[in-house]
């Protein structure tokens, strides 16, 4: 202990330089989490004195709130779909680009996949809103052109299609970030390994299955964690496109939290939704870290 203290004193300048980062991290990242946990035990409108209600918010939320049940079902479907998409489609795109031998063409494709990253997400969402517009939308127009008018509908106004319309958002689902992470992982594999695999006759899909995927499992794990967090917390797209409707057919916990906090002024209740989301994410991240191991970690 003494030696640790001596070490800190000795390198005090370095620690002092780190201090502002930690202070800011605590104020803006950790404090809100602890504050949310604390406030989740209160009935609080954000302004007047909070009233302690124990576990009431959680009991109400888990056992008595029908909107939360629908939200939980919706977010489960959305998360499973989005995570599956996140770890497959960008990987396929990365493999395709990685296997282009002409460096110039590979560079062009890489740029094309990354450019959408700079388009503001709001613009993207408004484009999709237009695509789904029942009267002027691209999708219905396209269906009419190809003679499938019977399939035309109000994609965001029909209870039976809204959630699927939300799932389809962002098609062809090649997230620039996930794509770059997978591509970086592939580029990091030593060429010697590929040469050895080639000599052993491991090529094509077999190479992807037995060489590429095991060696980029670290990246896949990262994408898995981040996409799960994104999917579970995400609500902006739904807020812009449907506001959780029609009815509650596209309501998700993030949007429900937002509505409770800023629309219904039920801060304590909103905090309890946040705490539950946080706990689920923590658990999923723990499971991911503990049970999914990359090749380096296995060694």
């Amino acid at each position, binding site marked *: 202990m003494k030696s640790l203290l001596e070490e800190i004193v000795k390198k005090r300048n370095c620690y002092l330089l780190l201090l502002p980062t930690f202070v800011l991290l605590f104020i803006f990242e950790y404090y809100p989490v602890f504050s949310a946990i604390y406030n989740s035990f209160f009935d609080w*409108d*954000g*302004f*007047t004195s909070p009233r302690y209600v124990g576990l009431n918010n959680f009991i109400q939320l888990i056992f008595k709130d029908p909107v939360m049940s629908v939200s939980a079902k919706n977010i489960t479907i959305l998360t499973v779909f989005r995570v599956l998409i996140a770890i497959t489609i960008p990987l396929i795109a990365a493999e395709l680009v990685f296997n282009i031998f002409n460096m110039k063409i590979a560079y062009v494709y890489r740029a094309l996949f990354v450019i959408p990253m700079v388009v503001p997400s*709001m613009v993207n969402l408004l484009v999709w809103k237009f695509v*789904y*517009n*029942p*009267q*002027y939308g691209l999708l219905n127009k396209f269906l009419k052109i190809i003679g499938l008018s019977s399939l035309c*509908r*109000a*994609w*965001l*106004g*029909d*209870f039976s299609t*809204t959630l699927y319309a939300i799932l389809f958002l962002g098609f062809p689902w090649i997230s620039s970030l996930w794509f770059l992470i997978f591509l970086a992982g592939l580029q990091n594999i030593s060429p010697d390994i590929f040469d050895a695999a080639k000599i052993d006759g491991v090529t094509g899909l077999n190479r992807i299955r037995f060489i590429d995927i095991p060696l980029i499992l670290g990246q896949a794990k990262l994408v898995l964690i981040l996409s799960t967090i994104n999917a579970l917390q995400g609500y902006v797209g739904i807020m*812009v496109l*449907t*506001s959780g*409707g*029609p*009815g*509650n057919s596209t309501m998700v916990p993030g949007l429900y939290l937002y*509505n409770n906090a*800023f*629309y*219904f*002024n*039920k801060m304590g209740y909103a905090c309890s939704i946040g705490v539950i989301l946080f706990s689920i994410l923590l658990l999923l991240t723990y499971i991911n870290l503990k049970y999914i191991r990359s090749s380096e970690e296995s060694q």
Partner: protein
Amino acid sequence: MSKSVKVISVVVLIFFILGICSISFAEKKVIRMDAREYYPRERLSTDRWNPPTYLWRLEKEYETLHPDIDIQFIRPPEGMDADVWLTTQLTGGTTPEISEQLFSEVNRNAYKGWYVDLAPFLEKPNPYVKDNKKWRDIFLEIAIATGKAPDGKSQYVLPIGITGTAIFYNKDIFKKVGVKVPGTWKEFIDIQAKIKQAGYIPFAFPMAGEKMRANWSLRTIQDMILDSKMAEIKGVKGTVKRTAIEASAISQKELVQAIKKGVYSVRDPQWQEQLRLFKEWSKYWEDGYLGVDSQGAYMLFINGQTAMMYESAAQIKPIEVDPLRKFQYGLFYFPRITKESSKYATGISAAAVGGVTGAGAWIIPSTTKDRGLLNEAIDWLMFITAPQNYIPMANDLGAAAPALKARKGLDKRLEPFVKSLERGVFRVESFYRGLTREYAESFYQILQQYLADKLTLQQACDQIQIEMEKAANALIDARPEWGIKK
């Protein structure tokens, strides 16, 4: 003196000089105004009509008179619910010195101490109005009355934008189909059937995004259907007259009492009648109306695809000047429900939807006082509300008539909306402002499910009743002074 001490001294000196400079630069007092609809901006290439700019002119004039004041205009972020934005600002104490909020929301939050009471200032003279003894004298009484807090004394909001609603119709389609402006609900439904038969979409009705059109319609229908029950709901004998202030004939407290007594009940077939009529009407709306927002409905109308839409005075200027419009348009008021359409109808005319609820419901948050800018904010508000300033500003926006006694120079196109208020506005309202926001949200979600045949009328009403009772109980908890038992 060592070198490091010299360096530190120089740095401290620089900061000291910069500090003095910043003090002299900061001499001007900044008044930020959330100007909302009046927010001035340049016309963009995508605009189809001129945006408001008049506040820039007033700003310049005012800053010439008061060189120590810097007026800045802001507005809620694009795409964000303005009221949610304002709530976060009020909660965080970061609200601009002047903002805008609907009287019902202000009254809902009044007990939180968020607003400055404007009542004492209204008794003082407005120096920008000639011979004015009391500022309040320049406003129509309806403005003062609407802005009055539930305690009957305080005035936390100064609502001065008179608005109203009307059904806008495409005269060309009406002529082609051979139908006339309807006076009763039966005629209204009949002409829509004919218009539909002729291959047009009768009505553009937005049911996605903001919930105004459904609320306007239901408030109006409910007022006619429950006409015979109003006195019972209010808990008095005789009749309950309409006033010019929304839902003021029956107060929130009286509504909650009526809910608790079961007098105002969703299980009552008379109450349910409004939902039945609303759904009957929905047969004539555009396909996929649950996914169409107000902008989408407007586009359907302006492009000549639908024969009618339900809009407020705020759309007069756009419709007048929109280059997309290739037809003549007209206005008519919401039709009267008669015995032909419902056994509960008494034949009373449709109530107006509107009042002093249009653009320009000014509030001063209490944080303005904490910042020492209250007098400056009041003075700027006095300046802009002077008739010679406010009337041209309102004309420039073209969305709401100012609730000022002076009428000289007022845009004539806004007159039908002001006139609509003569019928009085709806007396009771539970869907939107009458109870809690949470109830309003739940109600709308259930209504959407009912319209989409996901719920029967009975199922929908059972669910609404549960939510309504929850809301009534929440209000009883929040207002112990009412003395109503749960």
